[in-house]
């Protein structure tokens, strides 16, 4: 046992006595007298229902939450009266700007209302009627294998941090829970689609797994979020958008539209979090650059992952013939440039415009642009 309650309740006569008195109708009701802010929160917009934003009132709200959480070290809900004897849950992150994001409450509410079901929201029966030719089928199965492989990292990493965050940041914890579910659904849908193509799963990707390990092992939540939400998921978001474009069937396009919606939310959190960090914790700027230096090194090393790049070319060009490959390369080039452009654009919007100048990835992309045909 790593922690034992300070009291064994069944052996504590005072506690047992009180329990039995309550069971006989003899109540103390001291909880009714605790000083508190009496509020009656109501939906501002009835169609949206009662949102976390409607609860942003006084000490219960997130606006008045201080930068450093010094008082609550337990699971006491934010704003509740805290009696003596609450345990210390050893939160490792008690500074708001290490986890907070503008509009976090909005991202959470959106996630809850836009949950979907990979089992029933895809026209699986319709997809059964389509036989993909070997080159397309294998390329698609390989792309899906890659996506199945990487999705759950975005469950494991935030989940690892959830328990380390102070309970006062419950909106962030709740958002993490929605993200975990989103990613489980993504792993599910890509796996199911791969297994329904008739080709099954293809080859795992060592190069990408190194990147996953990098994401898992970040030293702080802020670094984990930066590399996961903003960089990795941002790039995957662009990948989803192009994948919708090159998808072999309408059902597959729907699949990518659904996952894109979730992914955009995660990227949104990542951006608004970075913006919050830079606005409230500016001394982090240099550490962020250092982390991005290595994150971008992994991104560039992703070039070794031929099991991602090549299927993309085949799917883009719609086949393996020479002219298909040429067309596929053209689209893939455009995709990769768009992917990195969007990444640097996001960083600039978050308040990191100098990243382009500092980044080796940006320099490599610029060099590549110069060698590409107009």
């Amino acid at each position, binding site marked *: *046992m790593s922690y034992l*309650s*300070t009291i064994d*309740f*069944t052996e504590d006569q005072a506690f047992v006595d009180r*329990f039995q008195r*309550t069971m006989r109708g003899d*109540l103390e009701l001291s*909880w*009714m007298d*605790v000083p508190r802010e*009496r*509020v*009656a929160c109501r939906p501002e917009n*009835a169609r*949206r*229902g*009662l949102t976390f934003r409607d609860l942003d*009132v006084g000490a219960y709200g997130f606006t008045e939450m201080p930068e450093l959480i010094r008082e609550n070290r337990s*699971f*006491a*809900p934010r704003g*509740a*009266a805290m*009696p003596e004897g*609450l345990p210390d849950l050893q939160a490792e992150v008690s500074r708001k700007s290490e986890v907070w994001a503008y509009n976090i409450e909005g991202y*959470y509410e959106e996630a809850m*209302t836009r949950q979907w079901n990979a*089992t*029933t929201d895809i026209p*699986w029966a319709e997809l059964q009627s389509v036989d993909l030719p070997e080159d397309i089928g294998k390329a698609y199965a390989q792309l899906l294998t890659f996506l199945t492989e990487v999705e759950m990292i975005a469950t494991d*990493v935030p*989940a690892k941090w959830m328990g380390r965050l102070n309970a006062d940041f419950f909106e962030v914890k*709740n958002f*993490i*829970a*929605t993200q*975990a*579910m989103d990613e489980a*659904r993504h792993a*599910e849908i890509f796996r*199911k689609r791969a*297994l329904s193509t*008739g080709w*099954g*799963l293809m080859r795992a990707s060592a190069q990408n*797994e190194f990147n996953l*390990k*990098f994401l898992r*092992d970040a030293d702080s939540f802020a670094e984990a979020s930066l590399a996961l939400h903003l960089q990795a998921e941002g790039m995957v978001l662009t990948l989803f958008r192009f994948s919708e474009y090159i998808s072999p069937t309408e059902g597959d396009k729907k699949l990518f539209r659904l996952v894109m919606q979730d992914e955009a939310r995660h990227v949104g959190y990542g951006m608004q979090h970075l913006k919050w960090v830079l606005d409230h914790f500016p001394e982090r700027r240099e550490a962020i650059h250092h982390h991005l230096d*290595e994150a971008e*090194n992994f991104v*560039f090393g992703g*070039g070794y992952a031929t*099991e991602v790049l*090549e299927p993309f070319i085949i799917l883009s060009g719609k086949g393996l013939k*020479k002219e298909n*490959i*040429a067309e596929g390369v053209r689209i893939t080039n455009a995709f990769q440039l768009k992917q990195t452009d969007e990444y640097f654009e996001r960083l600039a919007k978050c308040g990191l415009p100098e990243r382009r100048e500092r980044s080796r*990835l940006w320099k490599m992309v610029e060099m590549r642009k110069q060698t590409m045909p107009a």
Partner: protein
Amino acid sequence: MAYYAEKNFFEDEQLIELVTSILSGNLTLEWYQAQGARVRARPADPRRGLTYEDCNLGPYGYDAIPELIRNRYSMAARGSVLVTKLPDLGYTVNRRSDVWSDNVVTLYEEAKSRRWAPAVDVPWTELAARADPVREAAMAQVCTFLEEVALVAMEMPSKWVFSINQEFLELKSFLCAQMIDEARHVEACRKRALASGQGLGRASASAEQALKELLSAETYPEASLGMNLLLGGFVVAMYRAIAALAGMRADRLLGTLAMQDVARSVAYGVGHMRYHLAHQPAKAVALGEYLDRTEHVVLGIAGSPEFLEPLVLLAAGSLDRERLAAGSRFARRWFRAALEEYFERAAAAGLGDRRERSRLPRLDS
């Protein structure tokens, strides 16, 4: 940061040559022949869609997961073709019977199809008409308490999912469903308390001490037994009581919808214990001892004044002495029934009849 790439790829001429060659149209196609087993998953019942059960095929299926995962420590999708140099991602829970349950796949599918959103699925505007301050104070206190419990119940799966081998994909997905279920309960209970006109009540020191003990379980089987089977059963009973005592549709819905979610965790907890003990029968002794020393947390949680007193008050409907006596009779029946259900579940899970051994029945005297 703790993990660095094996080289500076920006200086890697070999990589630049490879990518340049591919983007000139010279594909390696090394992966093209690396074909796993060819299958075609189909929905057994098109109305239900394509379930994980439909994908339980050959080497891809969950039936094919061995008891001990010895050679897969990466995130490679189960059944995909492995390559050399896949990194070790540090999983420490690698034994199937430490986590698996025969009903976990079905429960995951159910969790998705029975999702709800507290913001819109509870008729909050109904609360405006409510004007019984005693009842509302009791409801605010119960909901403060349940928010506290849900925060811990959300953290339990999050604490373990990171350490569980990726081969157990369906199980990990169920843990994610548990997380979002509990996030929903945090949300719903907080909203209900803050809509009451009373504000939040008092946190519970006894419940938190007990919850911390449960959360700190050293192994996943202990954590699951404590959180899903033991605590989960009592939390189901708590939500059931809220629904039963509700004076309006909003509270009834909150109670029944949350109860439905927690019931899935309890079902998993029972199924998991059954599976665990069927494959590791010797663990029954250790888990029995775990319950011997841990069952007391039920008293710290369900018997805490921050839950039990408002429950009596909700059942009583007023502070009148006679009504309070009636409310306390309800609470006694409630506790007795929840305890009996727990003993039944423990027995069904293979932990034997704990009625004689447990210290909890002594309380009901």
